[in-house]
């Protein structure tokens, strides 16, 4: 709905041409490698050829002697400037990370030395001449290696990078699972994925004078990079300018700078000339962080009517050596059953270190929940003899069920997966398909239909410190044209287009007259950029609010100038109208010239100029829902899958531009199709990557992607503007939709399972009823449940009373990374009192003491209402323990006496 008094030209909801396209489609985009600075030199890295080992020696003499080589830096050189590698949440890591390898290497491709040369050719020649001697060690490659192998990092006691949930079986839950009418145990093995942005990573770093640093870097938010580099280097962020005009995709990879980018930045500070590093494709496929290597077993119990009874998930994710934030992906569990009526869910979630390149985000990082849940539902439906769609209908949360809350306590007010499914079924004639499928089977053709539904948290702000609101700064220039400086950033998202549409509509100006600037940290205000499907929701709201403020300002000034009541004034197509006095119509330019240049004509107290800004913080979470359907044909001669039809029905609330929304869905679905059928970043037993070019890492090509059909449900959200995020959904719901279709087609042969990718070899093996994979998979590791290192057992009560009173420095491993705090404890007999101090503030508590064991509870409000149950054991000057965080399970606590 338009603000009152703004003209009727509608831009929101229209397929207007994208403002970005003319420059991008004619080769005039500005990417990092397009930038050439005077005096710029080029960087290449000498990298580890082994997955794990000690560095015995580094001899740079031969490389240094090559004409055109300016410098070769190792970690010893870069160490002159202290760098703290931070996670995406800007917290310090659990393990020591240096930009270049510090005495040992932890994965194939680990950067060891950095060469600075006249050009990239010479830099690569020199990198090949850096003589590095290693003492190779046995690597930890897979998740099962990590469970049993020696710790990857010297400063940890196991390979567990992060853990949430409860290790001990919940006996009541186990009893309910075992007693249920139908228990489905479903394992998903998810391969490792390379984000594969079209523009690989790259950076130009240049020191400007003594204090300033300018970075051209391909990223997801220039502001986030400035903040990260500021914190990592201990520089004021006001002295860092980050420019990233155009970015060729990121998909989670470029959230924060990582080893190579930080090495180049530090090298540029040391060397004093601009340095450029552009990652080549082999580097991108081997040394850029990767995603998604996961294993999960979901056990789900159903009653005889197909209603959900209880469920348990055991999840592991390979973090590699240096993840961009050690993580066990708690969101998998938070959203596992969020859209379904499930009484009880428990889980164990672990992230594992390995000698592989580190883990980064990838579009819909928690997508495992939809994949394993939706495939579980289809397996259950086949086993129960209930139609797959009917099974969902019996369990999905509908609008009529809301408001309600998930088992994690996340409020649900307006999710619509059931309604999306209904709308989808208006277009998809399932009964007709089943007839066609039966006929085809008689001819030996195997068709399958897959359906999946999901919800997705989008536009999150306020619960995690880096996930902030968005800032829109608008000006009507003295020319009457509109300039917006946004905190948004596009890696293909089209935010220059969508924000201009909002401004044009809300301000009453022509779309062509709006220019949106973004991509420069010195221009807009802070935002984390494209992460978590957030920009449309949050920046959309900010832009609406700023436009309304600015329109109001124009009307106040016009009212004053023409002695008319504000409510009689409208702005339409750049003209300011006064109701009943058409002769008084003036252009925005005429009004703006007065606003800027004739202060004496302004109303009393009116700030000169026509400028407004608004930083919008939306509700903590805005849910997007969707249901998808896909029809495939499986060639039983070859095991190849042909996608014949794909229908998407999503509810992303108010749509700013349907073409942009559909582009986001299509891109995510293409990645989902690649995940199910083609892509696989694999390693041999020594940790060598085996897909180092696009000949072996198979991305879906245009010929592998069907023409998607789109249906839009459009239930306005509670955020300003009613927008819901849509950036990640396709990548989340695509895989289960396609796996379900393949499983349906192959149902006559048995269950295909979900060991991704579903290659022709795997599919034909099911059809043939024998294993066509020549190399028989190594036997599964012995069924020994490897316990994570448990906190030390409580010492005998007879032990001398521990000294508890005093101050303790403690670190809590949370889903957002380690959190530091100080605990002050005071004991009095069996009573304990004290307070916990953290950057967020302090909280007092009271509890009990039993020998050297402390028990107390804390109630917190953020990010959600939850009771934290502390259980701490003190031994000498050390403290260990765990904190039960409601549904999130246990988090590990360590500490020492201050």
């Amino acid at each position, binding site marked *: 709905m338009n603000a009152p008094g703004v003209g009727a030209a509608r831009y929101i909801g229209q397929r207007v041409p994208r403002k970005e396209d003319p420059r991008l489609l004619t080769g005039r985009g500005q990417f990092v490698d397009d930038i050439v600075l005077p005096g710029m030199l080029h960087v290449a890295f000498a990298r580890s050829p082994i997955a794990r080992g000690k560095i015995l020696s580094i001899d740079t003499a031969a490389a240094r002697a090559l004409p055109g080589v300016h410098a070769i830096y190792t970690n010893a050189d870069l160490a002159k400037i202290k760098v703290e590698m931070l996670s995406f949440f800007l917290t310090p890591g659990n393990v020591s990370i240096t930009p270049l390898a510090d005495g040992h290497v932890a994965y194939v491709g680990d950067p060891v030395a950095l060469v600075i040369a006249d050009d990239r050719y010479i830099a690569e020649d020199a990198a090949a001449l850096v003589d590095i001697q290693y003492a190779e060690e046995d690597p930890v490659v897979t998740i099962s290696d990590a469970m049993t192998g020696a710790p990857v990092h010297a400063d940890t006691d196991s390979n567990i990078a992060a853990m949430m949930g409860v290790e001990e079986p919940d006996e009541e839950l186990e009893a309910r699972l075992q007693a249920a009418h139908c228990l489905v145990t479903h394992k998903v093995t998810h391969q490792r994925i390379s984000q594969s942005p079209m523009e690989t990573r790259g950076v130009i770093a240049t020191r400007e004078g003594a204090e300033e640093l300018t970075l051209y870097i391909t990223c997801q938010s220039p502001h986030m990079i400035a903040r990260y580099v500021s914190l990592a280097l201990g520089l004021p962020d006001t002295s860092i300018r980050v420019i990233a005009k155009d970015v060729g995709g990121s998909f989670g990879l470029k959230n924060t700078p990582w080893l190579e980018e930080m090495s180049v930045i530090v090298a540029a500070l040391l060397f004093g000339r601009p340095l450029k590093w552009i990652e080549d494709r*082999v580097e991108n496929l081997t040394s850029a962080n990767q995603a998604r290597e996961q294993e999960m077993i979901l056990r789900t119990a159903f009653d005889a009517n197909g209603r959900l009874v209880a469920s348990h998930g055991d999840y592991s994710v390979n973090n590699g050596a240096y993840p961009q934030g050690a993580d066990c992906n708690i969101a998998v569990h938070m959203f596992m059953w969020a859209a379904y009526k499930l009484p009880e869910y428990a889980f164990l979630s672990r992230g594992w270190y390995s000698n592989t390149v580190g883990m980064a985000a990838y579009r819909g990082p928690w997508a495992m929940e939809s994949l394993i849940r939706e495939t579980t539902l289809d397996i259950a439906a086949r086993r129960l003899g209930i139609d797959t769609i009917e099974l969902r209908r019996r369990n999905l949360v509908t609008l009529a069920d809301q408001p309600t809350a998930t088992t994690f306590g996340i409020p649900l007010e307006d999710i619509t997966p059931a309604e999306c499914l209904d709308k989808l079924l208006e277009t998809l004639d399932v009964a007709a398909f089943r007839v066609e499928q039966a006929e085809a089977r008689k001819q030996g053709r195997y068709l399958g239909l897959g359906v999946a539904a999901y919800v997705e948290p989008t536009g999150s702000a306020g619960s995690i410190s880096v996930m902030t609101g968005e800032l829109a700064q608008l000006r009507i220039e003295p020319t009457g044209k509109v300039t917006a400086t946004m905190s948004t950033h596009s890696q293909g998202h089209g935010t220059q287009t969508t924000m201009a549409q909002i401004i044009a509509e809300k301000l009453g100006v022509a779309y062509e007259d709006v220019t949106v600037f973004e991509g420069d940290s010195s221009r807009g205000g802070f935002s984390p950029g494209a992460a978590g499907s957030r920009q449309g929701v949050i920046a959309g709201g900010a832009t609406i609010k700023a436009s309304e403020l600015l329109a109001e300002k124009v009307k106040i000034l016009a009212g004053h100038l023409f002695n008319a009541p504000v409510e009689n004034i409208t702005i339409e197509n750049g003209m300011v109208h006064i109701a009943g006095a058409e002769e008084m119509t003036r252009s925005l330019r005429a009004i703006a010239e007065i606003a800027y240049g004739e202060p004496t004509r302004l109303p009393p107290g009116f700030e000169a100029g026509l400028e407004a800004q608004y930083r919008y913080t939306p509700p903590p979470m805005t849910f997007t829902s969707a249901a998808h359907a896909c029809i495939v044909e499986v060639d039983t001669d070859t095991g190849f899958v042909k996608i014949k039809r794909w229908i998407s029905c999503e509810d992303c609330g108010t749509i700013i531009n349907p073409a942009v929304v559909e582009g986001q869905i299509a891109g995510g679905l293409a990645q989902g199709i690649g995940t199910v059928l083609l892509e696989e970043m694999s390693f041999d037993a020594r940790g060598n990557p085996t897909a180092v070019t696009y000949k072996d890492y198979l991305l879906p*090509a245009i010929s592998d992607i069907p023409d998607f059909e789109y249906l839009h449900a459009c239930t306005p959200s509670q955020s300003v503007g009613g927008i819901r995020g849509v950036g990640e959904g396709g990548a989340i719901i695509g895989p289960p939709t396609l796996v379900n279709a393949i499983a349906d087609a192959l149902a006559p042969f048995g269950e295909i399972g979900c060991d991704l990718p579903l290659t*022709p070899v795997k599919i034909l093996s099911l059809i043939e009823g024998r294993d066509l994979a020549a190399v028989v998979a190594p036997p599964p590791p012995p069924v020994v449940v490897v316990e994570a290192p448990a906190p030390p057992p409580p010492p005998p009560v007879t032990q001398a009373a521990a000294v508890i009173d005093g101050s303790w420095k403690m670190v809590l491993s949370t889903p957002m990374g380690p959190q530091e705090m100080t605990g002050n404890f005071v004991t009095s007999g069996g009573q304990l009192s004290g307070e916990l101090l953290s950057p967020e503030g302090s909280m007092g508590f009271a509890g009990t003491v039993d020998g050297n064991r402390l028990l107390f509870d804390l109630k917190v409000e953020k990010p959600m209402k939850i009771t934290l149950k502390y259980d701490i054991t003190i031994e000498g000057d050390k403290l260990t323990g765990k904190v039960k965080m409601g549904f999130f399970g246990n988090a590990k606590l360590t500490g020492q006496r201050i």
Partner: protein
Amino acid sequence: MKAAPFDYLAPGSIEEACALLAEAGGGASVLAGGQTLMPLLALRMSQPFILVDINNIAALRGVSRIAGGTRIGPATRQCDGLADAVLAEHLPVLVRALSHVGHYQTRNRGTIGGSIALGEPAAEMPATAVALGAVIEITSVRGVRRVEAADFYLGPYMTVLESDELVTGIEYPDWPPGHVILFREVAQRPGDFALVGLVGALVVEGARITRAGLAWFGMGPTPVKMRQAEAAILGQSADALDVNGLAALAIADTAPFDDHHASAEYRRTVGRRMFTRILREALGRQEAA
């Protein structure tokens, strides 16, 4: 991904090119369309000291009729081959195979001879040359020699070409008008090297099969001539073939391997099915060339 340093030379004649190759003593690579060589250089998997660019040699380009056959200049671009009227008339299966070589964009630069000389075992052009009984003309300062395509390939990317030799022509014998063409490949994406591929030609005269040229690609270290199946099919009635028996013979000549994309057993299984299906279809429908 930047090439190591090399010298670049672009001779204008075959003689000059051969002289340069001889002089280089094994340190040269021949640049034709560059669709394989340039990535190999960029990856530094190939580090020649000298690059001999044959794109200026007009005598290496074009399609011509010769006695009893068709000659293709090795530097003929794949896209030109696809549009060539002589090839369409006389070597229809080669044109069909060409449409599966790489992608539209790579075919604009890639050459027929480049693909044949490279010897990728899963590529279409080498197997087509083997199936059709082509002869490869090889020139060096030492003279000209002619090698049957079936004898040209030694292993993956390994051929009988010596380091001073250049492929200067590919000569395909005529197959009579109306011959039956066979072509099918299974590749994960259009344009990928085949997991399994089959190419061939049959001559059927009075219901009897009188001539057969059949080859696999992606089914061994080289293109694989189906010698046993070819021998067994000759003289058979096209209407009463033991297709399953022939398929077993065809598979018997293969030696596929496991790789990142498929297993040997997958290749054999799909190959057998592909062989039986394509033979039934081709003979059943008598798809005429």
